[in-house]
């Protein structure tokens, strides 16, 4: 990945394409934890990779590339949370939610099952920081110190945050009749 960043610093568009393939889903999944909005999350992904394109030479190698990129994505995500929301986004999202909801009803019954839907709902009930932390551990598979760097807090805070997140998740799953596995 560091080689990719070096190539991007030399304005290699093929390297940016490779980075997009490697990081796109990870950035969108990460941004979704705070924004809960696929459109804004996609926007965060684009802005993040564009920032990498323009500032690849600033990567100092003091962390993993993915940690550096997710750190940029976090700033972009927080910018989005602070920015006013376009009214048309709400309309468009409502229309999409309706479609997604209908699709989800079918898919859940036929494929994913009730548990996945309940887990998703339980994750949504966690605080934003807890959700973000869960994503960084289990989806991004980052080390404790890297997560502390991204969330700008001590490692003990990360441990406590995740401990409580797991507790809340377990409680939520149990209250929905799915406690045996979470």
């Amino acid at each position, binding site marked *: 990945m560091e080689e990719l960043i070096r190539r991007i610093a030399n304005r290699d*568009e093929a390297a*940016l*394409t490779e980075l*997009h*393939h490697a990081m*796109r*889903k990870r950035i*969108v*999944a990460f941004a*979704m934890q705070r924004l809960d909005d*696929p*459109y804004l*999350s*996609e*926007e965060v*992904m*684009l*802005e993040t*990779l*564009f*920032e990498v*394109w*323009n500032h690849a030479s600033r990567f100092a190698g003091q962390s993993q590339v993915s940690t550096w990129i997710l750190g940029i994505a976090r700033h972009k995500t927080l910018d989005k949370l602070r920015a006013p929301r*376009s*009214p*048309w*986004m709400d*309309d*468009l999202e409502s*229309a*999409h939610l309706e*479609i*997604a909801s209908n699709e989800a009803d079918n898919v859940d019954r036929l494929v994913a099952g009730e*548990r*996945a839907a309940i*887990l*998703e709902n339980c*994750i949504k009930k966690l605080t934003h920081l807890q959700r973000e932390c*869960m*994503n960084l*551990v*289990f*989806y991004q*598979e*980052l*080390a*404790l110190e*890297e997560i502390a760097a991204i969330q700008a807090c001590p490692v003990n805070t990360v*441990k406590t945050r*995740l*401990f409580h997140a*797991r507790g809340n*998740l377990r409680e939520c799953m149990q209250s929905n009749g799915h406690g045996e*596995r*979470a």
Partner: protein
Amino acid sequence: MIPSGMKANDWQHFQEMLPWYVNGTLGAGARQEMLHLLATYPECAAELKLLESLAKEIRDQPLPLNDERGLDRLMAMVRAQTDGKLSVIGSANVARRPDAPERKESRQLPVFGIAATVLIALTAAFIVQFLHNEDPATLRPLGAAEISGNREVIQATFRATASEAQIRGLLSTVGAEIVSGPGAIGVYVLRVPNGRVDSAMLELQQATGLVDSATLLAK
């Protein structure tokens, strides 16, 4: 509950470090400690199984978006920047970088260009809205236009290579008007008159050189 024979501190330490054992990022020493606890206490092994299951479910959760449109837009932004043109459809917000002083001077013109383009678009939209609106009392700016109503709504995205003139020409041909957009990822919301949605959808879907996607959202 703390496993019998296990110290409370060890149990807490195990619980705290287990997520990083699961994601494989523990150092060799810490991993060895965890392996010892897992081999000694069945409760620890059960806890591991639960967390591995949870981790898998989190990793397997589908993302709402899963296509390659983003790459086209990203590369369009890069090339627009290279060419000194930032007014790529939908990328203006992405390309705006007030925190980059070294490029501030070179971005003055594109920023003014974007502002001028937006102003022209809003003015044009206002005029179109004024001409087509039956009730002047309900006149509203483009960004606040309602999706609901007795017309039919299509969401569309256009190829990064499509020019604004080409898009306008196509929309005129199919009889669609822009309700809002483009968003930063290039999404337009279009409205067509009653009874024309099927033909409009067909024409949009056939214009593969310009249209990336067209989806009927509401009636």
